């Protein structure tokens, strides 16, 4: 396996562990239960590997949401985790250096303008990709995460 793929996989797994640790802190004052399991991800050239998955349920063990790792072979992002609830799904991506830049150059390769594929994502971190044509991404924090739980869990 290529060293680059191995490093990428490792960074992905560490990033998920940090995210899940944050999520535990974010919902510790809410009456919810968290279970962590693993799922296999098959990604050439890294091959099959196990990644952690988080299941959040209420005190009656009714599913609120699952945080499902998707992998590192993602168009326009470094890696992705989906938040899947009984009623909806949200896409969370990680950008190591912010959302991809798009350069406007001339024939001499002089750069005239730089924009990002998604607005509002200049820093490294986890972001919610809004499912709109406006191309906005929102940095994931406690408030947004709780809102997303509500969104995917309730009709």
């Amino acid at each position: 396996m290529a060293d680059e793929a191995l490093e990428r996989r490792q960074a992905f797994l560490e990033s998920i562990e940090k995210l899940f640790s944050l999520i535990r802190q974010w919902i510790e004052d809410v009456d919810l239960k968290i279970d962590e399991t693993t799922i296999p991800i098959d990604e050439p050239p890294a091959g099959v590997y196990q990644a952690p998955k988080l299941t959040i349920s209420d005190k009656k063990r009714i599913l609120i949401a699952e945080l499902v790792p998707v992998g590192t072979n993602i168009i326009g992002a470094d890696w992705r985790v989906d938040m899947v609830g009984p009623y909806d799904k949200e896409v969370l991506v990680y950008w190591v250096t912010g959302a991809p830049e798009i350069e406007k150059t001339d024939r001499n390769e002089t750069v005239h303008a730089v924009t990002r594929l998604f607005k509002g994502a200049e820093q490294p971190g986890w972001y919610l990709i809004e499912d709109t044509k406006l191309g906005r991404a929102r940095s994931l924090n406690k408030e947004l995460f709780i809102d997303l739980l509500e969104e995917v869990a309730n009709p």
Partner: protein
Amino acid sequence: MTYGDDPLESVWTTYVTTQSSFKVTKKVSGRKDLSLLSKTNLVPVDGLSTTSLINSARDELEDLLILAMWAKFERYLIEYIQGVGAVLDTARPVSLAGNLHEKFEMSVESWKSTDVIDLFKDIVDEKLRGHAKNIKKYRDYIAHKNPRNEDAPKTDPATAYRVLSNFILVIRSEAS
């Protein structure tokens, strides 16, 4: 109905509208009175809940959106290149120009998508072209389910829309 100049807007609007309809249906399915679902395939039967039917449809819809957006995008690029090649019609000798133009227009239709994308290498950012080619790979995977293409990078509707619409936007700004 017109959708302005964005060739992807009609499929995107259809996607968003369908997603909204799914949400309304899920809200209805959460009620005790399911009469609003009568005469549809959404009445829960055989252990299949309305929500699970809708969730399956949602996932399928996302794939269909990618297929539809790619078709619109590819058609836009082909017609753009055919438009640029219209000058062949005025080439000399005149007796050859018409046939040459006709041959060019037909030929463009069968060019490989990746080759068409690379024609724009002096206009469109290399990374954006790379993302567009990857969407084509993903499109091929969901269209043919060929196990050899299982390593195709994954995408989501919003990212695919952003990549393809930005590509078109850059071409347009160059042309204007």
